[in-house]
């Protein structure tokens, strides 16, 4: 727990796939109990960065440090051993499994049963319900219910509760609000704040500037694999960020094109 080193630090990380540069020289830091928002349009390199952090790919160059010491994340198992948990858009959960079963996938609690070990489903169900409740989900009271019957926000909560329960210190949320309605998204944002309060470093990956601005402490904008901007809460306005993400020039071009189309449409109606 040295004060100097951030919980997670990426230094000059690059990744190329057969000659194509997916990520170029990315440096980032996240502290415990803070939310880093990773903003970027589709194809900006957000998914590549997530894959590197969650151990699916190794970077071509650059280093990853946890609490100041360099780590190698060659497999998803390495990532989770270092306390990095990733929750994907659909919640990374299994629609046709029960809440309790899916909460403990890969880490099933067992009880002695003669010479065998038995999966303790009662315990699994109870813990899953209790942990979701601690994130403010009170509507799920029965852990034997199927995950597919939960709402999108509840599924996110289940996945986040799972990561928190298994001791994640870095929580990567991949577009958690993208598939949700306004109300559900608000709920997920509230859960992000709860995770932050528990001292977890949250990396919130999104292309929704409004959602990012409402919970983020620190922001990084990716454009075509490069870090285009890096700023703290209050240092930029929403318009500035949106403009940057859309790429100012491209946006101006689009506006001109739309104006032409409008003019053409008016001509034909007259």
């Amino acid at each position, binding site marked *: 727990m040295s004060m100097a080193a951030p919980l997670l630090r990426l230094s000059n990380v690059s990744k190329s796939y057969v000659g194509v540069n997916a990520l170029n020289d990315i440096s980032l830091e996240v502290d415990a109990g803070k939310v880093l928002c990773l903003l970027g349009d589709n194809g900006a390199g957000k998914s590549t960065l997530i894959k590197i952090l969650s151990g699916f790919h190794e970077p071509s160059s650059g280093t990853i440090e946890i609490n100041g010491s360099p780590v190698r994340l060659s497999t*998803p198992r390495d990532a989770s051993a270092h306390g990095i948990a990733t929750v994907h858009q659909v919640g990374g*959960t*299994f*629609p*046709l499994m029960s809440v309790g079963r899916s909460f403990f996938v*890969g880490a*099933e609690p067992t009880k002695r049963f003669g010479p065998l070990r*038995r999966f303790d489903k009662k315990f699994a169900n109870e813990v899953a319900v209790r942990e979701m409740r601690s994130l403010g989900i009170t509507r799920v009271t029965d852990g034997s*219910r199927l995950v597919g019957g939960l709402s999108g926000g509840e599924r996110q909560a289940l996945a986040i509760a799972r990561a928190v329960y298994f001791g994640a210190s870095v929580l990567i949320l991949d577009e958690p609000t993208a598939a949700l309605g306004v109300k559900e998204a608000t709920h997920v944002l509230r859960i992000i704040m709860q995770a932050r309060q528990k001292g977890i470093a949250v990396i919130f990956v999104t292309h929704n500037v409004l959602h990012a601005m409402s919970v983020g402490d620190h922001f990084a904008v990716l454009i075509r694999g490069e870090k285009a901007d890096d700023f703290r809460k209050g240092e930029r306005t929403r318009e500035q960020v949106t403009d940057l993400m859309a790429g100012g020039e491209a946006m101006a071009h689009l506006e001109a094109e739309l104006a032409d189309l409008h003019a053409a449409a008016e001509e034909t109606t007259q």
Partner: protein
Amino acid sequence: MTVHTVPAEAATSRAPSTGPSIRDLTRRPETGALIGTLGVYAFFAIFGGDKFLSAAGSASWLNVAAELGIIAVPVGLLMIAGELDLSVGSVLAASSMTLAIVSGYWGGPMILGIVLALAVGVLTGLVNGLVVTRSNVPSFVVTLATLSALAGLTLGMSRVITGTTSVGLRPDPASKAIFGTLIGGQFEVAIFWWIGVAACVAWMLQESRYGNWIFAVGGDKESARATGIPTDKVKIALYIGSGFGAALVGVIQTILYNGAQVANGQSFVFNSIIAVVIGGVLLTGGYGSVVGVLLGTLTFAIVNQGIYYTGWNSDWAALILGILLLVAVLMNNTFRKFALSSGTRKPSSGARTSRKA
């Protein structure tokens, strides 16, 4: 704070109105299969009469169910994990021929023949599993290739070695008693093998952690892998299981009928899938139960044999099975929807699992 208050009311008003037993039943994958089994049993009890209900009648469909079931249970497990195994037909033939050639044609010890026959199943399962997990070729194609290749290999080898396609075997009394007796003159000892296999597999699927891994692998392989489950090893083990099941039936048939033929077993390829799907296992994986597969197997066997007791032409059995398969799948889809919605007030969005299915 409406999010919190509304469901609390819904929960309290909901609980006493419907009994938990009915709710639990509709949430289980085998509910549709149970209705199917009871339905066809009642149907043939009415149209097949006393002969169908007699001990001999029961033995005829139980024997079919037992042999099919020993294969359908591991095939169902594999399907829950999201993969198919079509090679079981050829595994059965290859293991039968192996036993008949080793212990019959060459006159080797029975135990050696049995071990080698079972090894053929394990080895084929291992090959299937390795190819499916190492390549990105769908398991349908991989196991279709094994089905064909192994059928060819069996035919070729048996002609080269014995010069014929059917080999006799004189099993010793102990092997006969363990694998190929008819209890009371009509019930195959395979029925006990079937019950044993099903009980072990059911415990493993429902009560052990490995069962949870199988559901997870079939539900979403990438997420399962991300949680640290050795997904490839799970699949390879399940392929070895289905290969072993098919080889065991090969051993049972060879000892029961005192010989083997190269063409044995091909009917098991699709019959096992029919039984599994009627039993409520989702073809794309992630959902199903051993009890469901047992019921699906019974349903198949009852239709398959019951037709003989009705006095109708047996040509119609396949038609009934086809219709039954379609009805069963539709019914299972309905029950799966019940399972997904049970315990919730109206789902808040329509996009729950349709994407996954």
